[in-house]
């Protein structure tokens, strides 16, 4: 994986020094809060419901054991012994003091990390397929492009004050594991009929209060033109995106109002101009980055067989282990969704344990998924049992990946100052109601996502079942959406009827699963059955 060069390191070190001075000036009173707020936000420090919250960037969700261990140590040293992995592959600390924040950034910089691009109307931390570089179905590892994009976008002066925040996701497989079409820009590595590799650009997707699926704006772009094309996409947005109304400021609104064809025309026109400016980095730079993402030293003789005689281990392998591109290896997903737990939360000890397992069993590489789990991307099948035992002993081996208890949930009103309702307690109640793992497996893949407000950090629009918490006359109320999806079959969920109380929404979901079990046909997921039979049978069962 990518290692900082002296330029990268100097940049984050300089940023720490600059921020330390800004904090000192704030504490001394030479900066007012109005002056200081945008500066701290540029360094990931928010003021949330209970305290300062620091959001740390994990570029394209990839990190090594040293970095992961540091994240655990920070949780112990500066926070309350835990942290929260987010739906954008980042990590958040909920109890940070202003005085400590420069020291935390210094600790992060010591392992090549930072909190840049985690706030503000800039190009945010780029996300990627969490199976990148390991997936059996991959055309090409997308992370070199993501790293190039990171280098291009960090502190980009032209795009540091966009009309609104800007999120890019990139994948290298046909299977979309990054909700790519629900980003401002989604980039997919594709191959054309001639066998050449290129990039397909989806522009203008997003969730939030106006969810939209991004249309294809460029079907095939030579990879060595990626930066120029991104530059063109952003320039058109920066020029025409609305700054008078934050609710209409995202690029999805611009693309929708212009129409995809007109937006594409303007981008192509700008692209032709940008190409004359020679902004593209030299091919050698992309090759330099690619070399750092070269496969680790896989053992060609690694045995492919797994002893599945332990039934609990088999359950976990069946659900949480995925095919790897190299025989004898597998991809492990560490569930951060224990029954009744807080989705995405991990203790400092758990974080360090995962770091150690990554170091010892996964070529020192780890990933954070947007589903708030951790991935060990390169594990020998022969080591799976030992890994499972270590994870199980730490409460990290719940065999529930993509099942109803593998819930994406935003922090909600328990932590977030923007939220209207709590998300986590709803997730806990649902997971507890469906605690029987056999029952979960009987239900099969069922992606449930909860947001505590319309900003949709919990991706409720993209849930097979989505829940949106709202404030209804001062009381928490939960709207239920069915039919969303974030994968290759991306779709947006629709609200099925009046909202519920916290307990009521759990009951409603149970009734919906009963309808699914009664009506499903061979091989159908909940989503498939819903799409086939429509809303009526579910509404009848829930409201009838």
């Amino acid at each position: 994986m990518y290692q900082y060069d002296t330029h990268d390191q100097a940049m984050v070190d300089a940023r720490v020094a600059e921020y330390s001075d800004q904090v000192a000036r704030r504490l001394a009173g030479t900066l007012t809060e109005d002056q200081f707020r945008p500066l701290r936000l540029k360094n990931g420090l928010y003021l949330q419901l209970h305290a300062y919250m620091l959001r740390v960037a994990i570029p394209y969700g990839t990190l090594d054991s040293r970095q992961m261990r540091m994240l655990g140590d920070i949780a112990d040293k500066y926070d309350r012994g835990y942290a929260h992995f987010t739906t954008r592959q980042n990590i958040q600390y909920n109890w940070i003091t202003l005085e400590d924040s420069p020291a935390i950034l210094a600790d992060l910089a010591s392992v090549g990390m930072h909190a840049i691009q985690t706030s503000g109307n800039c190009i945010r931390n780029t996300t990627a397929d969490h199976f990148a570089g390991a997936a059996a179905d991959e055309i090409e590892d997308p992370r070199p492009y993501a790293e190039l994009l990171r280098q291009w976008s960090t502190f980009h002066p032209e795009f540091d004050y966009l009309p609104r925040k800007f999120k890019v996701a990139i994948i290298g497989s046909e299977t979309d594991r990054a909700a790519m079409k629900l980003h401002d820009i989604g980039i997919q590595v594709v191959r054309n009929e001639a066998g050449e590799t290129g990039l397909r650009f989806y522009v203008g997707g997003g969730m939030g209060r106006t969810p939209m699926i991004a249309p294809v704006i460029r079907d095939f772009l030579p990879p060595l033109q990626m930066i120029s094309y991104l530059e063109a996409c952003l320039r058109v947005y920066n020029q025409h995106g609305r700054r008078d109304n934050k609710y209409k400021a995202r690029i999805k609104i611009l693309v929708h109002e212009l129409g995809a064809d007109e937006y594409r025309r303007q981008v192509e026109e700008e692209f032709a101009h940008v190409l004359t400016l020679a902004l593209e980095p030299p091919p050698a730079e992309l090759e330099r980055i690619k070399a750092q993402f070269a496969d680790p030293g896989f053992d060609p003789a690694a045995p492919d067989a797994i002893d599945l005689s332990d039934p609990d281990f088999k359950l976990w392998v069946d659900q949480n282990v995925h095919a790897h591109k190299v025989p004898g290896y597998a991809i492990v997903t560490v569930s951060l969704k224990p029954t009744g737990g807080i989705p995405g939360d991990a203790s400092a000890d758990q974080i360090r344990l995962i770091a150690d397992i990554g170091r010892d069993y996964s070529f020192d590489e780890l990933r954070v998924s947007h589903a708030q789990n951790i991935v060990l991307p390169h594990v020998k099948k022969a080591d799976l049992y030992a890994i499972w035992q270590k994870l199980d002993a730490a409460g990290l081996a719940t065999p529930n990946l993509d099942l109803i208890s593998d819930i994406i949930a935003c922090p909600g009103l328990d932590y977030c100052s923007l939220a209207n309702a709590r998300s986590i307690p709803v997730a806990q109640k649902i997971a507890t109601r469906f605690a029987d793992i056999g029952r979960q497996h009987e239900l099969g893949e069922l992606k449930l996502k909860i947001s505590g407000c319309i900003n949709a950090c919990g991706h409720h629009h993209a849930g097979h079942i989505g829940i949106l918490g709202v404030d209804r006359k001062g009381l928490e109320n939960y709207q239920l959406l069915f039919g969303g999806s974030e994968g290759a079959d991306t779709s947006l969920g629709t609200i099925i009827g009046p909202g519920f109380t916290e307990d009521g929404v759990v009951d409603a979901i149970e009734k919906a699963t009963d309808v699914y079990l009664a009506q499903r046909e061979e091989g159908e997921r909940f989503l498939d059955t819903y799409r086939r039979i429509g809303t009526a049978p579910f509404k009848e069962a829930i409201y009838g």
Partner: protein
Amino acid sequence: MSSERFKILTGNDLLTGDVTWWTGSGWSKAVDDAVPVGAAADAIAASEQAARRVVGAYAIDAVRDAQGVRPVHIKERIRALGPTVRLDLSLRPNDPAAAAWIA
């Protein structure tokens, strides 16, 4: 016990970020220490923020009940208590009735 609403002043401690409540002479982490501020809220907020003792100060509605001062809106009650999903980290870690106070 009274259902009569009054204004109290809240904000976050500049250094720690802790939720804090205006007591009439300073700031407390306990909402029950909050006093009515009436029309003085903006002036107090401005002077306390200028003195860098608090950040993001604003007035909210509260009532007084058998347990003391109680913010009217659930969001402020959660601010006053702490995360309901981690009561061990709240201001009432050993109080089984703490979650009920939010409802």
